[in-house]
């Protein structure tokens, strides 16, 4: 589904990604872990199409297509979704209007009929129950005045409504207390399926107790230095990133 080969990216002349190789297949859940500044969020944003980054080398294929040629909205139409680490507040745009516009833009691009207000609301309410979200949040401006937990739930709600094939969760656990974390994780788990791939970007192992990954990758200095199964995350928790970084440095010698 997603193949990343030797990806190098930089921002304002600063090298951030320095040769990423990654393959994600349908139905898989991958966790990308790494210390601050390792390039985790950059990788997520590059896949979503943020234009802050210059891709200097490498390629990203999504279902066989050159993903880097597509605009952010085209990527969404193709089924890519990124849950933002810092969801943007948009005063004056109601959440329900925003989400309905997004869903219908995607449906339209795919040649499907657009949903009317009633059908959309039924769908949205259904998904909100899954996330224990108060319906009043739909009538408020997008993320404006939302608590940290509400913002993250709102991201997962969008994911549930837009029904992507590839979802990237960028530090969705940051700023969540344990109860909110469980709710968000349950929401994500409900969306797991044989046709959907999920990439969880996180600093901490904690989230992975609830969203259990098939694969774990450790990103250090813009490179994946170690890949493994679920147990790698637990190992990381014991050793910390320092141990891995050291091991990675030594293996390079």
């Amino acid at each position, binding site marked *: 589904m997603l193949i990343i080969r030797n990806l190098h990216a930089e921002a304002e002349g600063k090298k951030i990604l320095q040769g990423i190789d990654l393959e994600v297949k349908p139905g898989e859940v991958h966790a990308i872990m790494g210390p601050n500044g390792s390039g985790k969020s950059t990788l997520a944003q590059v896949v*979503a*199409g*943020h*234009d802050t980054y210059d891709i200097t080398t490498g390629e990203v294929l999504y279902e066989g297509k050159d993903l880097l040629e597509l*605009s*952010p*909205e085209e*990527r*969404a*139409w193709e089924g890519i*979704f*990124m849950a*933002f680490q810092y*969801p*943007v*507040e*948009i*005063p*004056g*745009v109601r959440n329900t209007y*925003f*989400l309905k*516009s*997004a*869903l219908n*833009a*995607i449906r339209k*691009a795919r040649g499907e009929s657009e949903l009317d207000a009633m059908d959309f609301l039924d769908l949205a309410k259904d998904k909100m129950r899954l996330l224990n979200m108060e319906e009043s949040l739909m009538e408020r*401006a997008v993320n404006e005045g939302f608590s940290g937990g509400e913002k993250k739930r709102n991201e997962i709600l*969008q994911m549930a409504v*837009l029904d992507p094939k590839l979802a990237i969760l960028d530090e969705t656990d940051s700023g969540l207390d344990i109860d909110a974390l469980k709710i968000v994780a349950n929401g994500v788990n409900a969306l797991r399926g044989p046709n959907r791939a999920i990439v969880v970007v996180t600093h901490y192992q904690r989230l992975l107790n609830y969203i259990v990954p098939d694969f774990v990758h450790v990103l250090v200095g813009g490179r994946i230095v170690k890949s493994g199964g679920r147990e790698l995350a637990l190992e990381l928790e014991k050793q910390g990133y320092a141990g891995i970084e050291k091991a990675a440095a030594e293996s390079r010698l």
Partner: protein
Amino acid sequence: MNGAEYPSVLKEIIMNEIDRYLISYENFQKTRSEKEPSWIRRIRKDAIERFAHLGFPGPRQEDWRFTRVKPITRTSFERVDGLRSNGLSSGEIARRTFNDAGCHRLAFVDGHYCAELSSQVGSNSGLVIESLADALQRRAALVENHLARYARFEEQAFIALNTAFISDGAFVYVPEDATVVEPIHLVFASSGLPSSTPAIGSATSNLHVDKAGPDAPSTNGNAPRTHPRILIIGEKGSRATIIESYIGLKQDAYFTNPVTEIILGENADVSHYKLQRESDAAYHVAALQANIEKDARFSSASISIGGALVRNDVNVILDGEGVSCALDGLYLGDNRQHVDNHTFIKHAKPNCESFELYKGILDGRSSGVFNGRIYVDPGAQKTDAKQTNNCLLLSDDARINTSPQLEIFADDVKCTHGATVGQLDEAAIFYLRSRGIEENDARHMLIYAFANEVLDRIHLAPVRDRFATDLFEWLSK
């Protein structure tokens, strides 16, 4: 500089700009009926003398620093003497303004009342909605008590100009404790036809020229100008909603110079709207003066879309305790449009509140000015004043000069002001796009959202809907 301020050639040009209006005034006076009350003649005379003394404002005057009136002063605009055939229909007015079915309507074309396009309201159990020309004949004493007593023609050249040429406009009188359920729509249309008067100095006046024939106004006439005058009196406890609409029927240049006076008695409640949709080449220099008494509520929302050069002065005096006043504004600018909003709220008495929200959206090489002055009198304790001006610049060449001015002479008050100038939030655009919304739609959504805060404050649904449509069209241009 040797005593002489200007070279003599320049001085002559400046003189001519003024002289043109002085001559026009003389001709205008000759056409007036002998039966006109002497007081109105005297007001006009005082006003033209003030205008001659003041001259047109220049960049050295603080209030006109960012707005050059040269394009207006160097053009020979001519007063239009009478109502002329223009092809305007009632439906066309609704199409160009808003769906005003269910409103009282007074329509004016080139400054003259047009009965055919108006709903015949006249006066009814004390309520008066009629043309100012009619009111001057029918109820001169009532008009005399208020007309030109509030709008400061002594100090403002454009108000003086309007006052010197007072002949027609709208007169609304809402008696004590009366509620006018239907909104009152005052429409000022400019036909854009050249003035039928061949030249300055000619005393001919073609009243009611019939359908275009061989004698129809020829293109060698001057660009027309109008000086609509509006007088609104809301007595104690009265309630009404009033909308002023300005529209241009042709794309040629013309000059609209309206002055509105609103006087509200105790506990009156009046909502006022102004929709400025002049044609793209038009000049529009307007002033609103409102005097509000004890416990009255007054709101005025100004929507500015058209015009090449637009100036709106809104002056409100809160002249009794417990007054609540809201001034809102939305202005759009594109190409080389220039839109200047000057507001002045005078808190003259204690315990009044004023709320002000102006938002501008400027594209192309357009420029905007917002100057919001709030003056709190020494005795006006417990004043609560809030002023906000936000401007969105959609292009690198668009400009805004925004300056809040608070002059507070009382010590127990709450006054805040804030101004922001910004561009669309790129992070928000990316967020929307990442959800599948196309870039252009994402931009429109954010611009809409920006305007929405003001739109939400417009309680008259057809007016709000109209602007929403206008904004959509403006964005899709």
